[in-house]
């Protein structure tokens, strides 16, 4: 496990490009909006939670899309499948290290973006927390999609279609929580729900990913 995690992280740092894409992307989406809209502050403030969350969702999906691609192409995916480690464990490790390199930056950047859209500072905590829970769940979902589509010649478009239906609830609740916090209400209820999603994801996704990887390799 550790060996795998360290390998993944090392690779990530070797190609800052691939890794920072999601963060890039996140910043991009959130900054482009004020540019696209005529930026009245109060308008920005109302849409901030939605924008930030949508941006995060997109960023994660974009990041996950190629999660297993290079491993598949250079043949190291088969080697991982053949390794004595239980595949679901491999999967969760892979996702976690990838999230550390791609998802975490997004979460870290979120407050900054929040400030840009003058999102109330006292609610930042909720923003970060919700993203922390949400992005990881999304990474897990994305990983399932990526694993299912990596073997396909038709390419990766399917992936968003497959993942989105499951990702939307996370988005809705996440944005909801952030909005609540912004209006000074107590978001803990929704946050618990997000946490529940995460737990569900962590327990089920690894097996789905493992199965999907097997199928993709066999095709």
């Amino acid at each position, binding site marked *: 496990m550790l060996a795998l995690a360290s*390998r993944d992280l090392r690779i990530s740092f*070797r190609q800052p490009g691939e890794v920072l894409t999601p963060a890039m992307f996140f910043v991009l989406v959130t900054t482009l909006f004020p540019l696209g809209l005529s930026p009245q502050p109060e308008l920005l403030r109302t849409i901030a939670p939605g924008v930030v969350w949508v941006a995060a969702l997109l960023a994660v999906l974009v990041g996950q899309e190629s999660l297993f691609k290079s491993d598949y*192409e250079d*043949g*190291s995916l088969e080697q991982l499948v053949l390794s*004595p*480690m239980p595949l679901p464990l491999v999967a969760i490790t892979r996702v976690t290290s990838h999230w550390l390199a791609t998802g975490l930056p997004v979460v870290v950047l979120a407050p900054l973006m929040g400030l840009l859209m003058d999102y109330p500072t006292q609610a930042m905590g909720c923003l970060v927390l919700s993203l922390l829970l949400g992005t990881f769940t999304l990474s897990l979902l994305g990983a399932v999609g990526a694993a299912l589509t990596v073997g396909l010649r038709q390419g990766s478009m399917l992936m968003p279609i497959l993942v989105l239906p499951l990702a939307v609830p996370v988005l809705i609740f996440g944005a909801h929580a952030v909005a609540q916090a912004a209006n000074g209400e107590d978001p803990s209820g929704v946050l618990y729900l997000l946490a529940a999603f995460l737990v569900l994801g962590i327990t089920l996704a690894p097996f789905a990913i493992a199965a999907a990887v097997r199928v993709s*390799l066999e095709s």
Partner: protein
Amino acid sequence: MTLEARSLGLWRVERCLCRDLSFRLGSGEILQFAGPNGSGKTSLMRAVAGVGRLDEGELFWEGNPATRSDGYRTDLLYLGHQTGLKSHLSATENYLFYQSIAGYSSEIGAKEALGRCGVTEPADRPVATLSMGQRRRAALARLLGVKAKLWLLDEPLTSLDTEGVGLVSQLLKSHVKGGGMAILATHQLLPGIEAQRLELGGKA
């Protein structure tokens, strides 16, 4: 320690690559999949390794079904068309990684193993900067780093120079002398290796 295949069958959409194919491999033996291009060597190799789809038949490792025994995966080392090297990591890093996730790893260090495979100077450069032959050699180094009973080598000689070919056959020799077994798929002949050949059907 034996690998036994009972009436294997492989299908690609409509096309039957092989069916009702059985073989038995004991320790110290080498089996070579032979056949023209497109006869199904790679597919069969992958199926035997457990990464490809096996449509019919079953594999037995030391008597019990390979699919359900983790022992099989720890005893097996598969080296395919794709070398499984990460192009961003150096040959050394790749070697150490595979050694660390292997079932049983040998004590041979990266420097020695890569050196014996003729990857000295480029050992610490990203694999992406290596030449084809150097990559192949870096991949072959795994054979030294991992203690696997069964080697599955699909065209191990690709883009190796004559000296590299010698290296492979010498590795194979010592492997079988140590009681290991191996399955090969190659079109070039390996000097001084006698293997039982399994002819696969002609090209459609």
